[in-house]
């Protein structure tokens, strides 16, 4: 018994108290927050720089935690705490642009988030007023057409790869889907333009359907990838049970495999739509821009929401603020559409998923 030496301070000696990192974080943020307040009062910055305060607060925290731990706990634990702090900081710093961006879009976009915006186009509008309804209609039509083109192709290709795919053709298709995933959106736009220029013989060709083709080129690989994953999740026992009952293969796929995977496939399609609905570059090239409403996908230029935001920002008229306001509202509407698609997709995935016994 005499060999046990009493450790001064008990078992927790040589360790920082449990909540010290959080406490130090609060302290660092207070210090930099106060510092930036002094900058504001001294007139060095026009407005209070909250982003800067948080950013430098996190940096200060990393240093303080390392030093405190090095003094109390030694170099190994100090390094561990340093990495922990760095990793948390990386996450925190990544949130800053997201928060800043959302605050910017919401605060600047609300100014024109009114009835006129959703009922008027920009026809004959050169000053304040007007709206983006022509762009909203264009975005919905072009994206819907892109979905109509890419969902059947993507789904059939996924069924081929999962249910039938063997040999060189399947390997080739898998490889090409990989290649397609990497096509830059602007290249898709160039392709759609080149295709329709050749078909129509018009060197200045612009129409909504070209945008749909370009978007579907970007959308097909996403649909194939997600549907493939979902079809692979369907247990083989279900297929075997259907075969054992004498159900032909195609009926098994249509009546057993697809319904089981349906929720996942719908989710994948919605996420794919959310991915392409914000694409600007291909639509700028091949759908063009206009101030008037155009319901016809196959004729004339067609405005879309992302291109609307772009043109309002880059080609403002004399009343610059009115153009910027419309642009920010367009950005807000676009983000809301994308968020809505994401949320609905997740709800579908959550509540309509088949009950597989796991």
């Amino acid at each position, binding site marked *: 018994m005499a060999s046990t030496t009493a450790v001064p301070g008990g078992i927790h000696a040589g360790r920082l108290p449990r909540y010290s990192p959080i406490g130090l974080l609060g302290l660092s943020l207070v210090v930099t927050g106060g510092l930036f307040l002094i900058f504001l009062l001294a007139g060095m910055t026009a407005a209070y720089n909250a982003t800067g305060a948080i950013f430098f607060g996190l940096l200060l925290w990393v240093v303080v935690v390392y030093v405190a731990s090095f003094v109390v706990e030694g170099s190994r634990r100090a390094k561990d705490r340093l990495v922990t702090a760095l990793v948390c900081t990386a996450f925190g710093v990544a949130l800053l642009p997201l928060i800043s961006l959302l605050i910017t879009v919401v605060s600047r976009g609300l100014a024109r988030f009114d009835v006129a915006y959703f009922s008027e186009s920009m026809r004959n509008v050169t000053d304040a007023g007007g709206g983006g309804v022509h762009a909203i209609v264009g975005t919905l039509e072009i994206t819907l057409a892109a979905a109509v083109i890419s969902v059947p192709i993507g789904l*059939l290709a996924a069924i081929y790869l999962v249910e039938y795919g063997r040999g060189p053709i399947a390997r080739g298709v898998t490889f090409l889907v990989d290649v*397609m995933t990497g096509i830059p959106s602007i290249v898709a736009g160039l392709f759609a333009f080149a295709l329709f220029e050749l078909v129509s013989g018009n060197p200045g060709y612009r129409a909504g359907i070209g945008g749909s083709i370009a978007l579907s080129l970007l959308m097909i690989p996403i649909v194939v990838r997600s549907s493939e994953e979902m079809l692979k999740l369907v247990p083989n026992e279900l297929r075997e049970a259907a075969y054992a009952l004498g159900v032909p293969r195609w009926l098994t796929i249509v009546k057993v495999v697809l319904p089981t995977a349906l929720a996942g496939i719908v989710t994948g399609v919605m996420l794919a739509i959310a991915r392409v609905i914000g694409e600007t570059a291909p639509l700028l090239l091949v759908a063009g821009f206009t101030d008037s409403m155009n319901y016809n996908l196959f004729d004339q230029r067609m405005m879309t929401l992302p291109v609307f935001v772009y043109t309002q920002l880059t080609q403002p008229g004399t009343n610059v603020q009115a153009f910027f306001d419309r642009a920010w509202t367009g950005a807000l509407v676009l*983000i809301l559409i994308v968020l809505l698609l994401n949320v609905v997709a997740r709800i579908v995935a959550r509540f309509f998923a088949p009950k597989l016994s796991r």
Partner: protein
Amino acid sequence: MTASTAPLRSRVRAPRHVGDSAFFGAALTGGLLILVALAAVAIFLVVQSLPAFGVKASELNNGFSSFWTYVVPLVFGTIWAALLALIIAVPFSLGIALFISHYAPRRIARGLGAIIDLLAAVPSVVFGAWGIFVFSPFVQPFYSFLSTTLGWFPPFSGPVSPTGRTVLTVAVVLAVMITPIITALSREIFLQTPRLNEEAALALGATRWEMIRIAVLPFGRAGIVSAAMLGLGRALGETLAVAMVLSPSVVISPFVLRSENPTTIAANIALNFPESFGINVNVLIATGLVLFVITFVVNATARAVVGRRGGGKGI
């Protein structure tokens, strides 16, 4: 014996359904359409590009002597901006991925991943607008500071752009845009680390960081490289954020804080395409072809890295 088994086999063979072959045909068509679409992309781009390769200086509307003197600075700008973005994005993405996979409490880890994925949902034109009006003014004072203190390092030398709309700003915006994909891919790989390896490291007395260094990172090395390459592919093709934020010129310049910045192929197409006609459209399409080839090589390399490891999930 063979005489008696042959008729037996034919008797138990399942009847052939018309529906079966029709459905197989439809599925195969879906797969082959992808092949046709990609072949069409390649053929159309090449055909439309051919006139551009031999273009004469008098026909170009941008003052360059040939296609190649025009495209080389653009290629430089594209790779330069994307590499800078990658250098910024990879450490952050790995940090976030580790945070989600190994540091954050289990219950909220999924939610945190979804928040980062939100960044991927923001359209690039919104990033561009934010880059111009919020981010550029925000970083400009830091650029002045950077240039006065670290100006001896050539890329940081002045004169500093008064607007902050430089290639470094673009690189940061691109980094924000590619962070979600690199994070998502490396997070998946970190989560696949064999549990026993991690527990063995911890049992030997390793701290959490030492466990990650000896168990998680070596396991995920190939995956990290390929995630970074896929992120690079994204950054290379990103158009609108670059086109809006950058004050562009077609030059080769390693200075990241000045007003004169090398533009990228994609941004250059977006800015010039609406006003171009005739042979200049072909020139822009040819630069697009070059971009396609570059991204193809980068993506193929990424997949080769994953493939060599084996067992890597097709991403």
